[in-house]
């Protein structure tokens, strides 16, 4: 565990306590089975917002606490432990980052305090296809006297069902198809011409596909740097998601260790079998390595380090690999019970694979790391 300040230690303890008492994994299961339209519990979200989590990275001037990304990572890691379904990542980290980085004063005043309070949910809408290629943008924005009109489709929009406002990537007609023609736009959730369709995914969380037909949008900031804001925002998203994945992987691992210490077969605790012990020991090793990579990535985001992109890719790839290993072993080591819907192993497996696909999978990030460093 990273060296924490007193405030950070208190924040983590508060998050851990809240998760254990108010949102154990049974809460996620209950939400899943309740037919919840948004795929998260709004009362639970109000409690999280009341604890200040939605404003952790938002400047104090806009109603946040400006505690930083390491702090946000600590909270997300705790939420990951019990698979808390929460808009915190999408709204409090990703969208808040985009608006803080790119918004003009009026836009910040309009949205950041509401995001910090949890009364508005914002989200980034940027994916368009099966593969994560954020620079491949077919959605267009044409300028008019009063603003921009957005047309196109967005896929896999996290919390797209609940969002009050979308931050949408689109190309402006400057004739080029380079990254420089990409800008970000604020689009209200109730804007005419916008339709959202629920996307049912295996992790039972809230996602939507969006269609825009000449929908009114407001450019984020003064323009000219949309791609760079999107790129930085995505790296922050990846670091935050990596922290959540680390929490899930750690919890999945220790639940599996508990099982090895209680399940008896052949008149022995199965944890006494060396075939399982060495696999457990290897998982422990991967988890420790992944933790180092995740903490280094969050630190790089916090410091705005020049090597942030490569450190973020390093972390997302490593934690992805580790979470994949641990969730597979969780099922295998539990045997038949792990295959049942009644057991939690499947919940970890399903969330793990969705996280793996989000913001670039292992292959994407290894390849990106290689490109950045010139291999």
């Amino acid at each position, binding site marked *: *565990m*990273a*060296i924490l300040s007193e405030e950070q230690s208190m924040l983590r303890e508060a998050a851990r306590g809240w998760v254990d008492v108010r949102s154990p994994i049974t809460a996620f299961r209950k939400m899943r089975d309740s037919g919840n339209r948004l795929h998260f519990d709004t009362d639970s979200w109000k409690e999280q917002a009341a604890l200040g989590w939605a404003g952790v990275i938002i400047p104090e001037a806009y109603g946040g606490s400006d505690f930083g990304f390491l702090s946000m990572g600590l909270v997300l890691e705790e939420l990951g432990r019990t698979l808390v379904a929460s808009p915190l990542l999408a709204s409090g980290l990703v969208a808040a980052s985009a608006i803080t980085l790119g918004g003009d004063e009026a836009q910040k005043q309009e949205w950041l305090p509401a995001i910090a309070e949890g009364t508005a949910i914002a989200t980034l809408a940027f994916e368009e296809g099966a593969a994560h290629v954020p620079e491949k943008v077919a959605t267009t924005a044409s300028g008019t006297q009063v603003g921009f009109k957005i047309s196109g489709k967005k896929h896999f929009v996290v919390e797209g069902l609940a969002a009050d406002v979308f931050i949408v990537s689109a190309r402006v007609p400057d004739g080029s198809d380079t990254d420089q023609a990409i800008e970000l736009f604020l689009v209200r959730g109730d804007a005419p011409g916008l339709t959202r369709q629920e996307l049912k995914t295996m992790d039972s969380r809230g996602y939507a596909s969006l269609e825009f037909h000449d929908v009114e949008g407001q450019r984020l900031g003064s323009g000219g740097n949309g791609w760079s804001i999107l790129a930085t925002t995505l790296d922050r998203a990846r670091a935050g998601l990596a922290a959540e994945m680390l929490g899930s992987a750690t919890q999945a691992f220790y639940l599996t*260790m508990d099982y*090895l*210490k209680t399940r008896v077969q052949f008149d022995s*605790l199965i*944890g*006494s079998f*060396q075939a*399982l*012990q*060495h696999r*457990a*020991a*290897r998982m*422990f*090793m991967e988890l*420790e*390595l*992944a*933790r*180092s*990579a995740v*903490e*280094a990535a969050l630190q790089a985001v916090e410091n705005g380090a020049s090597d942030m992109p490569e450190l973020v890719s*390093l972390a997302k*790839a*490593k934690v992805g690999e580790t979470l994949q290993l641990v969730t597979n072993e969780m099922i295998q080591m539990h045997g038949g019970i792990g295959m049942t819907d009644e057991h939690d192993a499947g919940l970890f497996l399903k969330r793990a694979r969705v996280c793996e696909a989000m913001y670039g999978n292992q292959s994407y990030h*290894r*390849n990106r*790391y*290689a490109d950045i*460093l*010139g*291999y």
Partner: protein
Amino acid sequence: MEHVGAADLSDFREEVGRWISDNFPVSLKNMANPMSREAMAFPTEDQEIWRKAMGAKGWGTPTWPTAYGAAGLTRDHARVIQQELLRAGAYNPIGGMGVMMFGPTLLEYGTAAQKAQHLPPIVRGDFQWCQGFSEPGAGSDLVSLQTRADDKGDHFLVNGQKTWTSGAQWAEWCFCLVRTNPHDKYNGISLVLFPMSTPGVEARPIKLINGNSSFCELFLTDVKVSKDQLVGSLNGGWAIAKRLLQHERTALAGSTTTAVEAYSLRELARKYVGTDAGGRIANPDLRARIVANEMEGRIFKQTALRATAEAKEGGDVSALSSMMKNANTRQMQQRTELAIEILGHQGIGWEGDSFSETELTVVRDFLYGKAPSIYGGSQEVQYNIISKRILGLPS
């Protein structure tokens, strides 16, 4: 660990920089640290000058107590020395098992007389130590060791055979595990010290698959060991041995052979495999595997930094040493496998003019690279330690 003010450190940094430039022989600048046992046994004149200067200053063992000629500094100061050495293209010439393993253990368990006798020569780099642990019948299962020490009143008489004793042919002293009670496996082991020049001590080098002989068989025949060279209590050696092994794991976890660090897989791949039109390593499969290995290497370094930072804050990171050793070994072995693969037909040479020095180094490193997952507690032993001591899995 006390914290040191930044101003205090910057004065110290200046002092260290000045002292290095006054004392470090320019002929050694940017030379690799001659830390191989063989190189340390046959130093050049300038290497001797440098060793003696650092030894007298006590900066080779910066955090050890001044009572033994060391510098008694904080870890922060020690880090400054390390950084300044690096900046000057210099190295720390005081090393080996005495510094890495034996010294820290003696500080913890030795008598005042033992510390006064043995620590100063280690601090000065005068004596090298070797480790009499493994035996032909006690490798991973070290506790089964059979070398006997019989109580002869004023001395012990030691008989038996050790093996894989690294550097025994060049060492001045040996710290050795012996059986002092044949009826109690764990509580029948003691740690004794003797000079390698004692009659009855014979070291025979073992030739390895890479052609080198850095390890020895050690034959002990009626070796007289003075009783004041027993460390800790009689039959209490196993606890001390575990401590020594922990120091060893920690040291091994952080070590990579200089040769492995000396070449870059990327540069080798560019030269031997070539690049595509976009400047990428031409074979995408190889490129992917090289990058995955380099990423693991970087994460290992991040983990070492994290462990250092946590240790500084007083956290117990001893649990990490087994995991660190296995992670480091895995990454290093994959790296040496990749290196010979990149070299292709130039990566299968043994000796001769058809192969460059680098090519031969790559091959020899690859071969020696099979050792680290065996020595210092095999990979499997480390996994046992993790699963039992850290994860608490049942026996």
